[in-house]
C-alpha cells in the first residue's frame, strides 16, 4: 500500500495572480488614456471621462482575450463588459440617492425629533424644536388600516384566480393588472369625490387609508397570485386525494406552502404605499398636530410632512424635509430587507 501524500485543495479554474495584474493594468491604462483624451481634446467633464474609460477598457479587454483565445472569446469579453457597464449605470444613481439622503437627512434629527410634533413651531424654526411624532403616528395608522383592508381582499382575489379559477378569471386578472397602473393621485381624487366632497364628511386618516388600499390591493393580489401559482399542483391533488375539501386543502396545504411568499406580497404592498403623497393630500388633509383618531379630523403623515417642509422654502424646513425622506427611506429599506429575509427563510424543496 502506497503512502497517501497530503493533498491540498486548489481551484485551477480561477484566474491566476498574473491575470489579475494584467486586468488591473488594463483598467488603469484605460483610465489614464481616457484622462489624456479629455485633457487634450474638446471633450470635458466627468461623463465623457466615464464613457471613454468604458470604451477603452472593453476594447482592450476584448483584444486581449481575442489574442489569447480567438474571436468568440473577444465577443464574450465585449458582452461581459456591457453587462458590467449596465450594473454600474444602475447602481450609480441608487448609491447617489442613498448618499445624498443620508448626508443631508441627519442634520435635523435630534433627541426630541421622534417625540414632538410641529403644532407649536413653524417649519422654519430652528432645528432643536419640533419633530415628526404626528407624522409617524399618522403613517402607522394609514398603513395599519390599509393592511387590514387590502391583505384579505388581495389574497382572496389571488385565491380566486389560482384555486377557484371561476368565471371571469381572465377579466379579473386583466383588471387587477390595469388597477396597478392607476396613477396614485387618481386614487386620492376618487376617494375625495366619492366619499368626501359634498357628503359632509371631512378629511380623516381612514379616508387616506382607503385611497392607499386602492393602490395596495392590486400589488398584493398580483404578487400573491404569482406565489400561489408556484405551489406544485401535485400538492393540491395530494390534499384532495386524502379526502379533504378544497377549502381545507387551500388552508392546510397551499397557503402554508406559499407562506413566505405571501408575507413578501404583503410587505411589497406596504412598501408600495408607504411613500405615497398625492392621494393623501385630498383625503387626510394633512396636519401639524398629533391626531390619534384615524376616523375623525385631519391627520399628518411622513410624506405630507416632507411635502409641507419642501414648499416652506427656508433652509431649516429643507433640512426637516431631508430628515423626513431619510426616515421614510430607512423604513422602506427595512421593509424590503424583511421581505427578502422572510422569502428566503425556510425554503424546503
Amino acid at each position: 500500500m502506497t503512502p497517501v501524500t497530503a493533498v491540498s485543495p486548489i481551484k485551477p479554474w480561477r484566474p491566476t495572480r498574473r491575470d489579475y495584474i494584467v486586468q488591473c493594468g488594463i483598467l488603469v491604462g484605460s483610465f489614464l488614456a481616457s484622462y489624456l483624451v479629455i485633457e487634450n481634446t474638446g471633450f470635458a467633464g466627468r461623463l465623457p471621462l466615464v464613457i471613454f474609460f468604458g470604451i477603452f477598457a472593453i476594447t482592450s479587454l476584448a483584444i486581449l482575450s481575442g489574442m489569447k483565445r480567438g474571436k468568440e472569446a473577444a465577443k464574450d469579453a465585449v458582452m461581459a463588459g456591457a453587462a458590467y457597464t449596465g450594473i454600474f449605470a444602475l447602481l450609480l444613481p441608487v448609491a447617489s440617492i442613498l448618499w445624498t439622503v443620508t448626508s443631508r437627512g441627519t442634520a435635523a434629527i435630534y433627541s426630541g425629533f421622534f417625540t414632538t410634533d410641529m403644532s407649536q413651531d413653524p417649519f422654519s424654526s430652528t432645528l432643536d424644536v419640533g419633530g415628526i411624532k404626528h407624522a409617524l403616528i399618522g403613517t402607522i395608522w394609514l398603513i395599519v388600516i390599509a393592511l387590514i383592508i387590502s391583505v384579505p381582499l388581495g389574497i382572496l382575489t389571488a385565491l380566486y384566480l389560482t384555486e377557484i379559477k371561476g368565471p371571469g378569471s381572465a377579466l379579473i386578472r386583466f383588471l387587477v393588472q390595469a388597477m396597478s397602473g392607476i396613477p396614485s393621485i387618481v386614487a386620492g381624487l376618487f376617494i375625495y369625490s366619492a366619499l368626501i366632497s359634498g357628503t359632509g364628511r371631512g378629511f380623516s386618516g381612514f379616508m387616506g387609508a382607503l385611497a392607499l388600499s386602492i393602490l395596495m390591493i392590486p400589488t398584493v393580489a398580483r404578487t400573491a397570485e404569482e406565489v400561489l401559482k408556484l405551489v406544485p399542483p401535485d400538492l393540491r391533488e395530494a390534499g384532495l386525494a386524502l379526502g379533504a375539501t378544497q377549502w381545507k386543502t387551500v388552508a392546510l396545504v397551499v397557503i402554508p406552502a406559499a407562506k413566505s411568499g405571501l408575507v413578501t406580497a404583503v410587505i411589497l404592498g406596504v412598501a408600495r404605499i408607504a411613500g405615497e403623497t398625492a392621494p393623501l393630500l385630498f383625503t387626510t388633509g394633512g396636519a401639524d398636530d398629533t391626531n390619534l383618531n384615524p376616523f375623525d379630523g385631519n391627520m399628518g403623515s411622513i410624506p405630507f410632512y416632507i411635502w409641507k417642509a419642501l414648499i416652506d422654502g427656508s433652509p431649516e424646513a429643507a433640512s426637516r424635509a431631508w430628515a423626513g425622506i431619510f426616515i421614510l427611506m430607512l423604513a422602506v429599506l427595512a421593509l424590503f430587507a424583511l421581505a427578502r429575509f422572510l422569502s428566503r427563510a425556510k425554503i424546503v424543496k
Partner: protein
Amino acid sequence: MSNTEKEDGSMNSTATPATGTRTTSLGNVATASAAARARSEQPVGSGLEARNVHAWFGKYHAISDMSLDFPTGTVTALIGPSGCGKSTFLRTLNRMHEFIPGAAMAGEVLLHGKDIYAPGTDVTKIRLKIGMVFQKPNPFPSMTIGENVLAGIKLAQLKVTNKNDLMEECLERAGLWNEVKDRLNQPGGSLSGGQQQRLCIARSLAVRPEVLLMDEPCSALDPGSTLKIEETISELAKTMTIIIVTHNMQQAARVSDYTAFLLSDGGPGQIVEFAPTREIFTRPKDKRTENYVTGRFG
C-alpha cells in the same frame, strides 16, 4: 373459514410446480406470481368495480368502455404503453379525473355495489375510502415527517384517539418507521426520494382507505427503493385492495395477482386483456399482449 384457507393453500402448493413447467424464460415471474396468487384466493367480498367506464378530455376520447373487477384483497396491475389511458382510468376510480379542466366521463364505478358517481355522493368520503399515491413523491413541504403522516386526519377532519400510535402504525406498514423514528420532527422534504414515496404511502394509510390506487409509484425511484415499495405493497395487500399502474413489467409480475393490458390503437384506450398475472405473462390470449409483455413493441 380457516379450513377453506388451508385448502386454498394446499391447492396453491400443488399448482406452483405446474406453473413452473409451463414457463420457459419467465420461470421466476411465474413463481413470484403464484406466491402472489396465494393472497388472491383468500375469501373476498365485493370490492371495487368499474363498469363501461369512458373518459374524455374536452373532445378527446381518452378511454373507452373499460370494465374491470377489483376483488377485495387483491393487487391489480394496469400495464400498457404510454398514452393508453392507464393513469386516466386510475383517476376515474377515485374521482380525481374531474379536476382536469374539460374532463368528462361515462359509466359506473361501484364501491361495495354503490356508484361513486351517483348524484348526492360525498366525494370527499369516496376519496377517503379510495386513497391515491402519485408518480412523483409529494410530501407536504410545510409539514414535518410526523405531520405529513397525520395530514389526512387534519385535512379530512377525522377524530383519532391516539395520534402517535396511528403515526407509528402507518409508518411501520409503509416500511419507513425504522428509518424515520428518530427524526419525526424534520421536514418531509429532507428524506430521500424513495423514503418520501413511502412517506406518501404512510400518509395515504392514515385515513384507513379500503382501496389504494398507485400511479407509477416507483418510476422516479432507484431499484433499492423500488424493492422496498414492492415489499410494502405485498404487505399492504393482505388487508386492502391495491391497483397499480406501472411501466415496469417485472414489477407487475412481482407484485400483482391480476394484470390488465391496456392499449390505444390510435383511438381511445381499451382493455385488451385482463387475466391472472401469471397467465398474462406466460400464455396471453391476445397476440398484442404477447408482443407487449415480451418486449416486441411498446
